[in-house]
């Protein structure tokens, strides 16, 4: 009898008994499957022994989990070696952005300081500048009533 073509769907995986590849495996593959089954059943037996032990108090330790957490948290540096990939990643994400953001902020701040100095020192905008200090000084007076550390000085009049 020929097998109908069973296709697995999203909610129904193909069971191994309906998979035609299951039936013509080599003896070595069978032996490997038997060994894996032996390991799995030994681990499951140990787990079930501990799980159903009435005098157990606390959790069952999983050595694989312990090895995994140790590798992820405490064993990183001994296994680190500077390769081209890691040094590129380090430069790209660790050092490069520092210089990049430095230039971004420096240009932005220079533009700001330049604009501010132009307004404070030019004669054309001086009339505007009479009103602005009035408002800012009123706001600052109001704010400084609640601000008790009155000795910090900043060199630019922003808040």
């Amino acid at each position: 009898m020929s097998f109908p073509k069973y296709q697995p769907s999203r909610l129904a995986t193909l069971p191994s008994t309906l998979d035609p590849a299951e039936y013509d495996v080599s003896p070595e593959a069978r032996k490997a499957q038997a060994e894996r089954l032996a390991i799995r059943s030994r681990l499951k037996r140990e787990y079930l022994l501990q799980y159903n032990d009435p005098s157990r108090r606390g959790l069952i330790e999983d050595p694989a989990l312990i090895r995994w957490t140790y590798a992820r948290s405490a064993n990183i540096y001994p296994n680190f070696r500077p390769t081209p990939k890691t040094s590129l990643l380090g430069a790209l994400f660790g050092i490069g952005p520092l210089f990049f953001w430095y230039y971004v902020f420096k240009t932005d701040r220079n533009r700001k300081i330049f604009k501010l100095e132009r307004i404070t020192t030019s004669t054309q905008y001086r009339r505007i500048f009479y009103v602005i200090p009035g408002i800012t000084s009123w706001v600052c007076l109001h704010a400084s009533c609640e601000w008790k550390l009155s000795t910090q000085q900043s060199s630019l009049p922003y808040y």
Partner: protein
Amino acid sequence: MLKIIIPTAMLMPMTWMSKPNMIWINSTIYSLLISLISLSYLNQLGDNSLNFSLLFFSDPLSAPLLVLTTWLLPLMLMASQSHLSKETLTRKKLYITMLTTLQLLLIMTFTATELIMFYILFEATLIPTLIIITRWGNQTERLNAGLYFLFYTLMGSLPLLVALLYIQNTTGTLNFLIIQYWAKPISTTWSNIFLWLACMMAFMVKMPLYGLHLWLPKAHVEAPIAGSMVLAAVLLKLGGYGMMRITILLNPTTNQMAYPFMMLSLWGMVMTSSICLRQTDLKSLIAYSSVSHMALVIVAVLIQTPWSYMGATALMIAHGLTSSMLFCLANSNYERVHSRTMILARGLQTILPLMAAWWLLASLANLALPPTINLIGELFVVMASFSWSNMTIILMGTNIIITALYTLYMLITTQRGKHTHHIKNINPSFTRENALMTLHLLPLLLLSLNPKTVLG
């Protein structure tokens, strides 16, 4: 000020002479009383600081930090009761003595007038912390952690001693009250640049700044619960407090010199928040989130505007309470499961619902939910840095989003979902633990009603 120092010093003989079943009760109750005394210092005068003597004073910056320190001692004692229950009596008393010594030194540090006295006490706080981490930690990595902690901080602060002595020789005094009127603006010569670096590096290491933060995850993870609490809540704030005090002397060099550290803090904020998303260890996640929050404080202190200082102080108090609470919650997990791996103990909401409520509130505070003071602090810092330069909003916004992401990741992994079936026989929450969480949360929520107290 002696009202607080002498009772704290007397806590030590009281511990050694108490009956064995009364040590925890005595020390906790008396340290709570001391913290209630320190609340009276919050009543600050308008323009000036409260001066108690030639040596001690408190102003709106140090008073909230002082109250935080004294509030934390009873909480630390409550949190340590369980993991010390198997030790001998002498070791328990020794532990309480270490905590009390640390408390005493911290109180004196926050209220010191002379900067040299501040420096001596700043260094002296390292020793009890080192003893607590290396003696009572849980894993073998604690020795390495103690080494990193001690030597990073010492290396950073040795230049500070030289700088303080130099300033004493040139300015004639290091009394904080006098020097704020006598400080002359210094020019940007090479020697002044080194002076600036020498003054600031100690506090940058303590904060910690992103490039020098390696000691923090190690120390926090390996410390016992009281050590983690005091490290996260108070010792990091020592760095912020010191920076705020010492920047008075360093104008206007700060305008030029601040750039590298601003870049490190801004980018480091984003980097450490992203690292949090990939952590497996719960305490390590909280430790990296501390680095991220403190980077905000560094940015605020380096900008030096009124709003940023207000934001920095609010953020320091808020982070102290929130971080300490998160460490207590992580410890309550650790005591039951004896492992810090997050995925090992999931779905705790079905088993310990009240503890899940505290987890939720702590996580919401950590991600700066309005109207907590976490939000007020962060908002002020973001606004001040926006006025410093418009582009910082990109990095700040990214950091706020990633903070929310990893906090919710931590909450969902530990609380929600199906619980792992081997934890169904853990102890229920003790009243002591619930009281601990309440005592952490209550100041935080009350301060959102009156943030003026911590806005300095």
